[in-house]
């Protein structure tokens, strides 16, 4: 029964788990809807109007941009990362350890693979929602070009699945909920700061650029920025493949790891 990738074991029933998680989000919608809509407004005020006043035009890809225009796509990418990762990281941990939700559902026709794939799907949906909400705000501030920015929607869903898989993996690793501080400190926060979100990587020393290349968020930022700037090009295909391949690998790893925790 050993298959190369655990995703082959997932059935349509994963959507039942997805529905369950989305239903919970609808019950608690205020806490889910407002943050992705309000966070970018705070960023725009702090960085665009506050810090941006001290920053001269940023040169990127041969053109000069306002700091706020430069920052906007970074905010979208960061929003997708945070909302998707945290959804599975804390959500799945709580459902596993405190609410015992998985223990209840494993007694129904859903398999462990169905349950965990459903978790990743709903985390990915949170990523899509965050990406769409922040894009809306950024658009209202006149910081996104169209139609190229529309690619951000499917991209947020795909990157959301990748980050949700990371979140699930971290949840599966952590013996206690406090242990989740570690991946935030070592992985999420460095990505937040060093993925080309706040400053261009072009002028950085080689080792910084090399490190950034390894961080998944960098690739999401690359495509998102080209999209809001209206300057998509074929070279971004690399970034897309990176996200796609990493999403599949981490999804398999996280489902295996969490399954071992669920069934022992």
């Amino acid at each position: 029964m050993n298959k190369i990738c655990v995703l082959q074991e997932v059935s349509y029933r994963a959507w039942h788990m997805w529905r369950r998680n989305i239903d919970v989000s609808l019950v608690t919608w205020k806490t889910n809807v407002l943050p992705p809509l309000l966070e970018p407004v705070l960023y725009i005020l702090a960085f665009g109007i506050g810090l941006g006043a001290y920053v001269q035009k940023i040169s990127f890809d041969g053109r000069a941009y306002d700091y706020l225009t430069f920052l906007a796509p970074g905010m979208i990418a960061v929003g997708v990362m945070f909302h998707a990762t945290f959804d599975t990281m804390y959500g799945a941990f709580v459902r596993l350890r405190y609410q015992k939700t998985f223990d209840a559902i494993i007694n129904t026709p859903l398999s462990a693979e169905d349950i965990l794939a459903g978790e990743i799907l709903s985390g990915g949906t949170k990523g899509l929602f965050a990406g769409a909400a922040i894009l809306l705000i950024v658009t209202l501030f006149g910081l996104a070009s169209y139609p190229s920015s529309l690619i951000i929607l499917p991209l947020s869903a795909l990157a959301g699945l990748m980050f949700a898989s990371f979140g699930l993996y971290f949840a599966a690793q952590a013996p206690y909920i406090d242990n989740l501080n570690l991946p935030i400190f070592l992985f999420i926060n460095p990505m937040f700061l060093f993925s080309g979100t706040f400053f261009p990587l072009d002028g950085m020393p080689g080792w910084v650029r090399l490190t950034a290349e390894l961080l998944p968020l960098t690739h999401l930022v690359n495509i998102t920025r080209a999209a809001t700037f209206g300057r998509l090009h074929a070279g971004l295909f690399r970034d897309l493949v990176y996200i796609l391949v990493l999403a599949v690998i981490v999804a398999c790893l996280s489902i295996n790891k969490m399954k071992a925790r669920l069934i022992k």
Partner: protein
Amino acid sequence: MDPVIKVTDLRKNYGGLRAVNGVDFEIGRGECFGLLGPNGAGKTTTVKMLTCALPLSGGDITVEGMSVNKDPRGIKYILGVCPQEVNLDPDFSVLKNLLVYSRYFDIPYSEARKRAVELIDRFHLHDKLERPIEDLSGGLKKRLLLARALINRPRVLILDEPTTGLDPQSRRQIWDEVRGMKSNGLTTLLTTHYIEEAELLCDRLVIVDAGKIVEQGTPQELILKHLDGKGNLEDVFLKLTGRNLRDE
């Protein structure tokens, strides 16, 4: 008649620990079968293997002819499981808990709603229909767990310590329900360490200790055999499993 559940040489090892060490029993149609034992005897491990939530280290379990090793999903469609721990969805109301759970069995919404309303009536939960789970008392939570276990009209009901932590009133209400289902011919497996509960509800039972069956029969047979009919099932239980304190 073929047994509904057949457990053959069941084994579960955790490293060197033999949590379940060669257990055999059969449960006939419409029977209420008890699995008794002190803490750490292997009851819950056995139940988890039966509900396909835990892989077997050895042996086999069949439910209606389906093997847990080969067709776990087929088995899970016809089982109703009332777990020991309260694992209701705290974010949903009483009604929504039943409706969401019904989706896992692919029950269409209109049918699920009909069944949920029936169960809510039957388990006297209608006053709490839209209440969140945290507002429910321990007894109500257990009743809702039992109602949830019936949403898929199971052919076999698994009750894992259904009355632990309940007051006598709630306990009796659960017992009445279980007896009612038994008279309707539902096959039931009950684990408990309330011996009175087993004596009252079970047609037949096994006593397990340290992963093995130490005795089996009807409650009356066991009392007759071990105590010449003088005493109750709890005395038999203590005679067979000893008086030492157990911890997990």
